[in-house]
C-alpha cells in the first residue's frame, strides 16, 4: 500500500499536494516526497519485502506511487557480485560490484523512470518526456512503449550513436539539441511550463529521484540486511549518490537494518567535475562547468543535487575523486579484464575513482566496499575502440593459424614483464 502523504520543500519545509511539482513556490528549493514512516513500521518488514517480486517493485511500499499497479519491466534486483579478482588487484579484502548494466535498457535509469512513469500515469499524463545524456532517453522511450504512452525525448546532438539508437528503436519523438546537456536541461525546464507532459526529471522529479533509493535497499538486502562500509557511486547531478544513502537510512528508520555507518564516496570525470572540485576546494558552492569528457552520461556541468551530494559526503565522511579520460578507459578495461563486466564510460569513471581512493588511503583494505556499475559498455563502444588488442586475421588453414600464433607468442615473450 502507499505511504506517500505529500511533497515538502527540502529547504523551507512547506508542504504541497503530491502532484506534478518539483520546486517550492517560495524559495525554489527542491520538493521531496513525504511518507508516513510511523504507519510503515511493523508493516513494511523484511519478510514482506522478501516475498515480493525479484524486481525493484519488491520495495513498492517505500516508493512514491499511490496505487498498486506499477509499470513492470523487470527492472532491478540486479546482481551484487563479489569481486575477488579486482579486489585482489586493488588491495581490498571485500569488494562487491552492483551490476546495474543488466536492467531492461541496460542502465540504472530504468529504476527512476519506472517510478516516474508509473506516477505520471497515475497523475493522468499521456506523454513522457525528459532531458537526457542518453541513458534516460533510452529508458523513457522504452517505458512509454510498454505503458502505451507517447514519448518525446531531448538529447544533446553530439551523443554516442549507440545511445541515439537505443532511444530511436522504441519510436519516440527524438529531439537532438545543438548544445550541451545543460542547454538541453534549461530548454526542457522552460518547455515543462508550456506543455502538458510529464518531464520525468523536471516536473515529476520528486518521484523520479526516489527510484534510485532501490539501489540502496537492494545492496543492504543482498548483504543479508546490512549496510556496507563504503559505497563508490558515479555522480552527474548527484541525485543517485544522495538517494542510495537515503535508502540505507530509511531501512534503518524502519528497523530493517542497524544504523548505517556507510561512507559515501563519489566519482566524476576531470572534464566534468563540479561536485568533486567543490569538495576538494572545501566549499559548498558549486561552480558550473562546461563539460569536456568521454564520460558523457556524467557530463552535467550544472548539477541539480550537487549541494546535497556535498552534504552527504560531509555527513558520511566520504570523499570525491575526479579522474582523467585515460583513466576512464583503463578503468573500463580493468573491470572487464578482472571481473568480466563490460561497463560504459561511467563505469570506467567509477572504477578509476575506486582505484584512486584506495591508493590515497581513503578506502581502507578491510572496508566492505560496494561499487555501483550503472550502465553497459555497448552503449559507449567508441571509448575503447582502437584501444583493445586487434584480432588475428588469418586464412582458414592450420598453417596460417600457426604462423599467426608464433608471431603472438614471440611478441608476448619479448614484452617486458608487467606487475
Amino acid at each position, binding site marked *: 500500500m502507499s505511504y506517500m502523504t505529500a511533497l515538502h520543500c527540502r*529547504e523551507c519545509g512547506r508542504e504541497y499536494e503530491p502532484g506534478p511539482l*518539483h*520546486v*517550492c*513556490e*517560495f*524559495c*525554489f*528549493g*527542491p520538493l521531496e516526497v513525504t511518507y508516513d514512516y510511523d504507519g510503515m513500521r511493523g508493516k513494511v518488514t523484511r519478510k514482506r519485502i522478501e516475498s515480493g517480486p525479484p524486481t525493484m517493485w519488491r520495495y513498492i511500499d517505500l516508493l512514491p506511487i499511490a496505487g498498486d499497479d506499477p509499470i513492470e519491466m523487470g527492472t532491478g534486483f540486479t546482481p551484487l557480485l563479489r569481486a575477488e579478482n579486482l579486489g585482489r588487484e586493488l588491495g581490498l579484502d571485500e569488494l562487491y560490484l552492483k551490476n546495474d548494466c543488466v536492467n531492461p535498457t541496460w542502465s540504472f535509469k530504468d529504476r527512476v523512470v519506472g517510478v516516474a512513469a508509473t506516477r505520471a500515469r497515475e497523475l493522468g499524463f499521456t506523454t513522457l518526456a525528459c*532531458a537526457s545524456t542518453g541513458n534516460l532517453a533510452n529508458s523513457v522511450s522504452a517505458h512509454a512503449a510498454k505503458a502505451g504512452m507517447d514519448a518525446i525525448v531531448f538529447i544533446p546532438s553530439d551523443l554516442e550513436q549507440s545511445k541515439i539508437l537505443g532511444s530511436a528503436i522504441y519510436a519516440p519523438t527524438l529531439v537532438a539539441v545543438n548544445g550541451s*546537456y*545543460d*542547454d538541453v*536541461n*534549461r530548454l*526542457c*525546464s*522552460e518547455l*515543462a*511550463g*508550456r506543455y502538458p507532459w510529464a*518531464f520525468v*526529471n*523536471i516536473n515529476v*522529479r520528486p518521484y523520479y529521484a526516489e527510484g534510485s533509493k532501490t539501489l540502496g535497499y537492494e545492496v543492504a538486502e543482498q548483504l543479508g540486511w546490512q549496510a556496507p562500509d563504503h559505497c563508490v557511486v558515479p555522480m*552527474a*547531478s*548527484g*541525485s*543517485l549518490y544522495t538517494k542510495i544513502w537515503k535508502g540505507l537510512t530509511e531501512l534503518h528508520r524502519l528497523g530493517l537494518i542497524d544504523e548505517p555507518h556507510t561512507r559515501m564516496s563519489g566519482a566524476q570525470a576531470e572534464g566534468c567535475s563540479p561536485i568533486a572540485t567543490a569538495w576538494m576546494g572545501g566549499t559548498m558552492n558549486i*561552480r*558550473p562547468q*562546461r563539460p569536456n569528457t568521454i564520460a558523457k552520461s556524467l557530463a*552535467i556541468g*550544472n*548539477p*541539480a*543535487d550537487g*549541494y546535497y551530494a556535498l552534504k552527504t559526503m560531509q555527513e558520511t565522511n566520504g570523499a570525491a575523486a575526479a579522474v582523467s579520460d585515460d583513466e576512464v578507459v583503463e578503468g573500463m578495461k580493468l573491470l572487464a579484464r578482472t571481473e568480466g563486466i563490460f561497463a560504459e564510460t561511467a563505469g570506467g569513471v567509477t572504477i578509476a575513482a575506486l582505484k584512486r581512493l584506495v591508493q590515497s588511503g581513503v578506502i581502507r583494505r578491510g572496508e566492505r566496499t560496494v561499487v555501483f556499475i550503472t550502465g553497459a559498455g555497448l552503449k559507449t563502444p567508441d571509448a575503447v575502440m582502437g584501444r583493445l588488442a586487434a584480432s588475428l586475421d588469418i586464412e582458414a588453414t592450420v598453417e596460417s593459424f600457426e604462423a599467426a600464433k608464433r608471431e603472438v607468442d614471440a611478441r608476448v615473450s619479448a614484452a617486458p614483464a608487467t606487475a
Partner: protein
Amino acid sequence: MSVSVRIPTPLRKMTNEQDVVKSTGDSLAALVEALEGEYPGLKDRLMDESGELRRFVNVYVNGEDVRFLSGLATPLKSGDEVSIVPAVAGG
C-alpha cells in the same frame, strides 16, 4: 531600452500569470530592482538575505548561465533575453 524576462511557473502568480514580461536595467542587478518595482516581492524570491542569487535559482542571459558571465553585474542591453529557471532539474 527593453529586456524580455522569462518567468518560471512558480513565479507566475506574481506576474499575473504572464510567462514573459518586459522590463529594463543596464545590469542584471538593475533589472531585478526594476522587476521588484513592478512586481513587489519578486526580488525576495530571487535573492537571499546576503543579496546573492538564491542557491536554487539559475539565471541565463541569451542562453548563457550568468555564473559564466559576471553574475548580478552582468551587463544587459536592449533586446536581451533573460531566463529565470529553477535550478533543480535534470540528472
